């Protein structure tokens, strides 16, 4: 069993979001970078659990990014995984990134590709689906449970207003949401071991891009809250009805 886990680097959830160069670039100054929570807490931990159950399982991590993603991928390796691959390219085009991952996945004949449900910065929820299409493999998005029995995966996923469970034969690409695993904290042994685990750097394949960021903008500031006294709930209802036209 070979599992490829897709790891991305994102700004910490509490980062102040601002832009520079005429709103064309994200202001990275002062930003703390973390592993995308969905990748770390769910995709990676589930892969490690599968390896713990069956030690012959091989877990590889992949990130598409510049040298500045290395601390992040080392941090991921401290949780587990046999080896990491960094495709040395920086792009905000989902198709370009997905095609790089698909290239590695194809060469490595992985049985399972795990991604997070979405990155918390770009919020595309796209890479997994694109990779699956490029591999011509089934895709289960927004998984909340993942069980494996031989070469059959039983996966529960989010649907509107509930969940559904599906069975599928490997290989499969899965995007992982909350529920797939429980968050773990890396321990000292893992952090030490991560230093000796290989981090391979691969040059990108020639892939076209299909989109381009033109600019960013921040939402207009809120006018400020209108407070209503706790003993005057009728006034709140009047405002919601007459002013906000929300009820």
């Amino acid at each position, binding site marked *: 069993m070979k599992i490829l886990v897709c790891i991305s680097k994102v700004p910490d959830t509490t980062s102040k979001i601002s832009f520079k160069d005429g709103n064309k670039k994200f202001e990275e100054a002062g930003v703390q970078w973390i592993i995308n929570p969905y990748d770390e807490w769910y995709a990676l931990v589930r892969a490690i659990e599968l390896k713990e159950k069956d030690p012959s399982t091989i877990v590889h991590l992949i990130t598409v990014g510049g040298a500045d993603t290395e601390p992040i991928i080392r941090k991921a390796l401290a949780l587990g995984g046999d080896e990491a691959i960094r495709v040395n390219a920086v792009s905000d085009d989902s198709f370009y990134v997905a095609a790089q991952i698909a290239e590695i996945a194809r060469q490595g004949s992985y049985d399972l590709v795990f991604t997070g449900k979405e990155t918390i910065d770009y919020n595309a929820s796209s890479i997994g689906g694109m990779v699956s299409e490029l591999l011509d493999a089934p895709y289960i998005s927004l998984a909340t449970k993942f069980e494996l029995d031989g070469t059959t995966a039983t996966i529960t996923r989010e649907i509107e*207003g509930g969940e559904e*469970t599906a069975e599928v034969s490997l290989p499969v690409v899965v995007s992982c949401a909350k529920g797939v695993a429980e968050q773990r904290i890396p321990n000292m042994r893992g952090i030490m071991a991560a230093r000796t685990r290989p981090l391979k750097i691969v040059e990108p394949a020639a892939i076209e891009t299909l989109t381009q960021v033109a600019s960013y903008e921040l939402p207009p500031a809120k006018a400020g809250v209108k407070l209503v006294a706790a003993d005057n709930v009728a006034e709140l209802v009047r405002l919601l009805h007459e002013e906000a036209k929300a009820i």
Partner: protein
Amino acid sequence: MSVLILIDHADGHIKKSSFEALTYGADLAKQLGTTAAGLLLGTVNDDLPALGKYGITTVQHVNNESLNNLDAQVYAKTIAEAVTATGADVIVISHNQTGKAVAPRLSARLKAGLVAGAIALPDTSNGFVVKKTVFSGKAFANIGITSAVKIISLNPNSYKTVAGEGTAEVKELAVTVDAPKVKITNVNKVKGEVPLTEAEVVVSGGRGLKGPENWGMIEDLAHVLHAATACSRPVADTHWRPHHEHVGQTGIQIAPNLYIAIGISGAIQHLAGVNRSKTIVVINKDAEAPFFKAADYGIVGDAFEVVPKLTEEIKKLKGV
């Protein structure tokens, strides 16, 4: 050149988010000086010609019951064939659970650039630039699609449905549909509730409610408002409420017309899931709760006193 809009459905009915997508696609077609068609995969009990009222001229129908279950691989291939058959060059899909599975596959298949989570019509004055939310609702990005065929997945609740006059012509589309590789073995849906991502009004509770036994008043308020219920992450983590109600950065992102937050502090990760709501009401006993900074209306007070009163006042307003 034309616009093709995926009509998503469940349990025999077209989803509300698809009416938004149809309206959006029809408006986009007008902007581009072309026509818009809907694409229905599978079968529904709804009146298809009546979809013309959203501005589409045609409903392309792949009448095959196996498509009533979603296998993203089969869907993407089928839609790709429909795109070829109709000559469409802009495809609109809802950015809901179906769209998140299907749109990226279709994008890779057609080498068509995708903007996932669009919130407005594209700016076509110079290229094809679509606005989408990024940083979990804290900012927007304008993304140019540079490929010939373009895909937009539209955030639910971000484009107003407009129903006018008109009937659409239903055309059966003969395309080969592959056998699904994904076998659905169980569906577990909460019956009779409004799905959170489609709800116009959402009533949400946090740890301030002390325990699951106190959710009755939240449900009563939701009931009079025809609202969906939601909760903060610790509430789902401690199993006071089911996981699919958890909103925020790590939960579901929503953008209802009205979001009522009760006993929720307003942590940045919670706001990331709800800050696109049009109107936010906060009820919290702590005047310093950060949520008030993101709110439009607020009451500083004890939820156990305020919420039942609010339910009564809304009943009065609605005459029930």
